[in-house]
Structure formats: C-alpha cells, structure tokens
C-alpha cells in the first residue's frame, strides 16, 4: 500500500485556523498593512504634529519640493505631515462608528429572539423599513439631526450602519434559534439572556466579524465623504476627507496634494477589506488545508491480476476500484465486483464505509475533488469511463427524491427530457412515453400527474417518479442509493416492491445500496458487505441470518433488533468505531473491533477469497467456512 498522509483535521478551532490563514500571503499582507496603519496612527501626531500645524506665511500654496514633499496649503502648512497626522483621527472616528454600528446591530438583531413574539415582530419590521431606506440619504438625515461636527458625523454614520447589521444578525440568529440545541437549552430552563450569550452569539461570531470589517471600510468612505461635504470634521480638526476638501480647489496646480488624502483612504479601506478576507478564509470552508499532498500514483503499483472469473455473462465488471481525495484520503480502497444480467445485488455498510461512492463511481458521478481509479470498469461490454450510459441503459435513484427532481419543472417535462436528450425522441413521443412510464410505476391518473410539479407529489410518489425517470430508457442496470431512507415506513415497502417489480418486468439488474440489512434482504439475492472502503463479504441473502462467515457481517446482523428479539437480553453491539478514511491501513480494518482477531489479522490484510459456490470473504478466521488452502497473500503484497 502507498503511504497515506494523516488527514488534515477538518474542524480545528477558529484560533488555529486564523493562525494558519495568517501564514498565507494574504494573511501576511493584511497583518503588515494593519501594523503599518497602527504605527502611523500612534506615532504620526507625535512626530509630525508640530510641523502639520505650523503656519508659515512665507510658503503659502507651494508645490512639491524637498522641504515640503507634497507642497503646502493656503496657510503654508506641510500637506504631507497633515496627511500623516490625519490618520489617527480618521481611524478613530471610523472605528468608533463601526463599534456603534456593530453593537447596535447586534442588540437590534438579537432582540426579536429575546423579546416576546409581538415586540420581536415590531423590531423586525422596523429594521426592515430602515434597511429599505437609501443609505446615503439616511446618513445625511442623521448628520443633520446629530449636528455638524465630528461627534455628530460619527453617530450619524454609526447609526446608519445599524439596520444592515441588524438584518444580518436577525437572519443568522433566527436560523440558530430554530436549531435543536437551542430548543434543548430552552427545555433545560436556560434563561433568554444566557441563551443569547452562550448559544447565539458564539455561533454568529465569525460572519459578524467579517461583516464588521467590511462595514468599517464603508464607514471610512462615508466619513471622508461627509467631511468632504463639510458635514463631518470641522476646522481646526482635520481628517482625510477634510484635507481632500481643502486641497481639491488646487488640483490643477498641485495635484499630488489633492490625491494624497484620497490614496490614504483607498489604502486603509483595502486594509479593512484584507482583514475581512482573512476572517472569511479562516471561518469558512476556504480555510487552507494544513497539508496538501497529491495522491500517490496508483499505477506505480503492480497491477493486480484480473480474476479469471471475469465471466462472459456479467453485466458489470469492476476490478480494483478506488476513490480517493486530493488530501490523500481514500474512501474506496480496491473494490472488485460483478453484477450479472438481471441480478439484484445489495451493497450494505455503515456510514463512511464507501458504499455510496462505489455506486457513484459506477455512474461516473463522484463529486468533484474525488478521483476514481480502477483496473477495470465495464458495463455491458463497454468501458464506462469513456462511454457513460447514464440516462439510457443505466438508471440512478437517489436517497432524497425532492433533491433529485427540479422543483420548478413539471414532472412530465423532466421525464420527457430524458427521452429527448438520450433517445432523440420528438417532444410528443417523449411526453407520451413519460405518461406511460409514470403509470408503469403505478402513479394514478398519470396524464394529470405529469402536469404537476414535484411539490404536489407525496414523498413516495416522488421516488416513484424518479424511478420512472430511470425507466424512460431501457435500463439494464438500476442503481438505487438508499432509495427508501428518506421515506415513511409504510411507503418504504411500496417503493421496495416497485423496485422488485421493475426488475422482473424489464429484466434490469439492480444494485441496491443501503445501511439497512432488512431492506436489502427483501429485494436482493446477493449481498456485498462493505467495511472501511473494502468488500469484506459476498454472500447470498439467505445466508445473512446464521450463515455469514465474516465476524463483521455477523455482528451487524446480530445488532438489529427484530420482532423476535427477546426484550430481556442485551442487544449485540460492535465495540469501537470504524476507521476513518485516512487512518493507518495495516492488516484487517476490522481487527481492532473483532473478538476473533489475532496478530496475523493486525499485521496482514486478508484478501477477498472465494469459497463454497460463489461466496467470498476477506477474513483470516471466517466463521464456519472452509477456505481453500492457498489464501495466503502474495509475498510482495504482504511486505508492502
């Protein structure tokens, strides 16, 4: 086996992720910009304060020179020094206004959750109205109310930020307030305010911080705007907006003097934006992986010999199928299977066993970063990878029928699309076939139902429609991935019956994937049991109870309570937990949880070998099975 890197921890703490993000080029740039800004704001007035305020009537309105880098203003004051000194006031006012906006937004946003229903609605409505108000108009209105001057402008801009922040917080808290853990806290009698401080605020912290940095950039701009208009900072105080106002008259005489404060505003705004990006990166899925390693080339390995039983009659032939991810995790680790014409094969396993990815690989639908590799995947004699058959002879049924139907399209239209795209039917032909197929899956008054949209169907009927969609072509194989898991128990049976019926009528083979052994047992003839990305047993359904050879299969069967389980005995359990896709892969994956495990199990992996007629098991100590003698693995493989 190639060495697998340990998986990156996907959900480390925010602090950890923040630290990691700060090490990226983006993080370094943002941090440097912040430090420069802070240094200038703190030291600027101390070093250049005197020079910025010194009136020199001998040097009025001079251009750029060695003595005055950016020239002087109409009182002979050095403009470069004034731009540097203005940093502190500009930043102070921006940050204060941001604090007002964020705190006010948080209070108003959380209020509907804390207050009763009626007051809460009032707050929500008020915020809604304020958000609808044009932003600039709102600022100007408030600036007039609070009065001209830096304090007034600060309040005006801060308060103007409140509604949009409040709206964001409201939306976020509403979804969190509806979550199960908040409901649990309510049942426990946790008070409203504790609820906010312990459950709501921590869970909205990251997007709020991101919003605050973005808001700060906007506020800086608004402030400069207000000062520029003369509504903000008043002389003798000055910020960048005010400097811009003073110098704009001379823009044709001394352009740098007018542009310098503008450049300062832009750079500072960019810095806020960068800080926001860092937060977004650290909090979101975009957080950089701690280690990324391209998957080792499988082809470097000696290709395993194809099994001689590559039977002529098989519909599907898969050999050494692997599904890996860019970070090196491998979810499917060498699955080989055959499906005969018209056979009903079950694939069972617990969550994370790789059963769904195996099915998706057959349909060439593995989601993006996943990489499929296989020595062989043939379907009906063709290589599936170069010649996908989805829609014509290969049909797929997914777990959630609501998600696999387009809610905006009529059901009949979605079905006929299949025939138009894949079979080249005319629109009328396709529509007729759609209605025919809907009635084939026992949808009553199919012609009328075909004109309805998915939301008008019940859950079971939607799943029937999806199955009907698979039947638009002439499927030779139907892959059903947990087709009944999202359905009600009473409907589950009907869908299973339908799948069995489809099989007998069309002669299609069925690959049924489920976590529920009972579901598979009802429809299938043969079952493959998957564990940690590999098939560990291949057995006829009739042998599931009592006849399974692999300890895992036996444990799985024993763990299910049935209608005959003695209520006075303990249910059988499997100690421990299955390995993660990136865990060390040595020996039998089930060994740590197996009562029969020996040193051999822990060091050498058992291969899937045949015994009896058509049964296979990957175990050194199969229960009740007599294995052929030559089951020892090839030396080369044991050593690797």
């Amino acid at each position: 086996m190639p060495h697998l890197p340990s998986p990156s921890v996907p959900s480390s703490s925010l602090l950890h992720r923040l630290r990691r993000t700060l090490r990226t080029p983006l993080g370094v740039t943002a941090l440097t910009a912040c430090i420069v800004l802070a240094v200038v704001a703190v030291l600027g007035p101390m070093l250049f304060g005197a020079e910025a305020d010194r009136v020199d009537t001998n040097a009025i309105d001079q251009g750029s020179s060695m003595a005055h880098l950016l020239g002087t203003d109409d009182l002979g004051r050095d403009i470069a020094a004034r731009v540097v000194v203005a940093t502190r006031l500009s930043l102070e006012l921006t940050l204060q206004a941001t604090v007002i906006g964020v705190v006010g937004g948080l209070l108003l946003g959380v209020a509907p959750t804390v207050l009763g229903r009626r007051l809460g609605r009032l707050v929500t409505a008020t915020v809604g109205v304020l958000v609808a108000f044009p932003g600039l108009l709102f600022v100007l209105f408030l600036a007039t109310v609070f009065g001209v001057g830096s304090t007034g402008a600060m309040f005006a801009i801060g308060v103007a930020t409140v509604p949009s922040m409040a709206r964001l917080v409201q939306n976020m808290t509403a979804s969190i307030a509806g979550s199960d853990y908040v409901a649990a806290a309510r049942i426990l009698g946790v008070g409203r305010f504790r609820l906010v401080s312990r459950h709501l605020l921590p869970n909205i912290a990251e997007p709020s911080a991101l919003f605050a940095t973005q808001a700060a950039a906007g506020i800086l701009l608004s402030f400069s705007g207000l000062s520029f208009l003369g509504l903000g900072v008043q002389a003798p105080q000055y910020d960048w907006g005010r400097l811009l106002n003073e110098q704009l008259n001379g823009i044709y005489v001394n352009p740098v003097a007018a542009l310098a404060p503008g450049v300062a505003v832009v750079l500072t705004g960019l810095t806020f934006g960068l800080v926001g990006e860092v937060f977004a990166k650290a909090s979101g899925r975009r957080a950089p992986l701690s280690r990324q390693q391209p998957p080792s080339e499988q082809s470097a390995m000696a290709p395993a010999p194809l099994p001689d039983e590559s039977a002529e009659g098989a519909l599907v032939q898969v050999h050494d199928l692997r599904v890996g991810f860019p970070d090196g995790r491998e979810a499917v680790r060498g699955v080989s299977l055959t499906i005969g014409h018209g056979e009903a094969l079950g694939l069972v396993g617990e969550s994370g066993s790789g059963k769904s990815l195996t099915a998706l690989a057959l349909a060439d639908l593995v989601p993006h970063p996943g990489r499929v590799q296989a020595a062989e995947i043939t379907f009906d004699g063709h290589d599936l990878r170069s010649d996908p058959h989805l829609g014509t002879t290969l049909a797929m049924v997914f777990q959630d029928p609501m998600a696999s139907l387009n809610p905006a399209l009529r059901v009949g239209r979605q079905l006929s699309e299949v025939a138009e795209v894949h079979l080249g039917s005319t629109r009328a032909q396709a529509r007729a076939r759609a209605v025919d197929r809907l009635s084939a899956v026992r949808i009553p008054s199919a012609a009328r139902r075909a004109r309805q949209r998915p939301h008008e169907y019940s859950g079971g009927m939607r799943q029937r429609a999806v199955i009907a969609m698979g039947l638009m072509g002439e499927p030779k194989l139907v892959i059903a991935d947990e087709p009944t898991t999202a359905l009600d128990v009473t409907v589950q049976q009907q869908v299973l019956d339908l799948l069995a019926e489809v099989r007998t009528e069309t002669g299609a083979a069925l690959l049924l994937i489920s976590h529920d052994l009972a579901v598979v047992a009802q429809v299938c003839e043969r079952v493959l049991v998957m564990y940690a990305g590999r098939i560990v047993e291949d057995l006829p359904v009739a042998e599931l109870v009592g006849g399974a050879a692999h300890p895992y299969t036996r444990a799985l069967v024993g763990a299910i309570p049935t209608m005959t389980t003695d209520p006075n005995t303990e249910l059988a359990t499997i100690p421990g937990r299955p390995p993660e896709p990136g865990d060390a892969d040595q020996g039998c994956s089930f060994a740590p949880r197996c009562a029969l495990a020996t040193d051999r199990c822990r060091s050498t992996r058992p291969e899937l070998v045949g015994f009896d007629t058509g049964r296979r098991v990957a175990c050194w100590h199969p229960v009740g099975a007599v294995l052929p003698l030559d089951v020892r693995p090839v030396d080369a493989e044991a050593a690797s």
Partner: protein
Amino acid sequence: MSSLELRGITVRYGRFTAVENVDLLVPEGTVTGLVGGSGSGKSTLGKAVVGLAPITAGQVLVDGGDLGRRRGRGPVQLVFQNPYASLDPRMTVGAAVAEALPRTGRAARSTEVARYLELVGIDPSRAVLTPDALSGGQRQRVALARALAARPGVLIADEITSALDVSVQGAVLNLLRELQRELGFAMLFISHNLAVVRYLSDQVAVMDEGRLVECGPTDRVLRQPEHATTRTLLACVPTISPAEEAS
C-alpha cells in the same frame, strides 16, 4: 419517580391540526412506545409535552400536577433525533452537560459532569472536546447525559436512534434501557421502528393523522392489533430472513 399524563392534548398550526385530543398515561417507571408513520403527529406530541409546540387545548400532568407554563428546568426532558444538530458546535461536551445541572460550585459541577458522562459511557476526560470530535453515537450519548443531568422524572426520546448506524443503535438502546431501569424515570419512546419499540416498551401507543388510535400492553398490541394502522405498521416491518416473516 414520576408519571406523565396527557389529557385531551390538541396542537394546531393555523388551520392544520397536528395532534387532536390525545389522552395518554405513561405510568411511573415504565416505558411507553409511541409509533406511527411520518406526519402522524407523534413527534409533535413529544414536543408539545416539553413546550416546544403550542398546546391549543389540553393538559400535561406530571405526577398529577399541571405542568402549565412554568419556567426553568422542567421535570420532562427530551432527547432529539439528530445528534448532529442537538449539540451546540461551539460548546464543549462538558459545558453542554453542565448547562443542565443546578447552579452549584465549580468543583461540584465538574464532578457531576464527569459522573453523568461516565453514566452514559463517555470517558470524562473528553469533556473538554467539542461535539465535532465525537461520532454520532457518542454525540447521542452526550445528549442523553445532558437530559439526565436535569434529573427528569419523565424522559421523551424522539427517534433517538434513527440517525445512527445499526451497530451504534444497539449500544444506545442497551444504554437507554439500562439507565431507565436503574434511574426509574418514565419514558415516552417515539419511533417508527416497531422492532425497536417492542424491545424497549411496556406499553405501545399508535398514532395516525394526529389521533391516538390504539394503546395497550406491548404484547397485546403487537400480537392482536385492533386498529388498521397498527396492522399496516406491523406489516411494514422489514425483516432480514423470510423465516422470521412467518412468526
């Protein structure tokens, strides 16, 4: 030890009646299984008991006393279906359990947290972890520990194993049964899986379209179902082997 009595509970959302006039008694120290298809109102009934669904009419009595609109830590606790949603992702496991405890000193609190985690088979040293470090089964144990830490007289388990794998389901069910016998709380066990309900319950109640259609001792209801809904549900239990279908 407490009993739970529901008298004429009705839950309406606008014009839609989710639960209609349900009378049910869960005697103290026993388990009542509540079964029904989806949309039968079984989960809504469970939520109504703990105040998460608005009760339009009727009374919830615990030990004969009206639960009414009291605040604070209730004598009825609920364990949710999905352990991935019922624990705050930002809160450590220990803090989640501690939230259910009465206010005491810091030291007493952490010993109590450790005791409850131990009770559900979670190593107390894991109290500092956040839920994302735990598997589904472990999360459900923590959720159970949190509910038990509030010392409920009545526990409502709402489909607590349907989001779990079969191998984990067995362990959680064993634990629940053992704890119920040891601590003696009354339990309303809501599930669509009759085999699981049969394994745990002394009494079975069947709901359909918001109404309680049948209620009686587990053996009797499952052996001689009187209502059509019960018969349908029984017929829909998937079995692994054809041999079991006959029995």
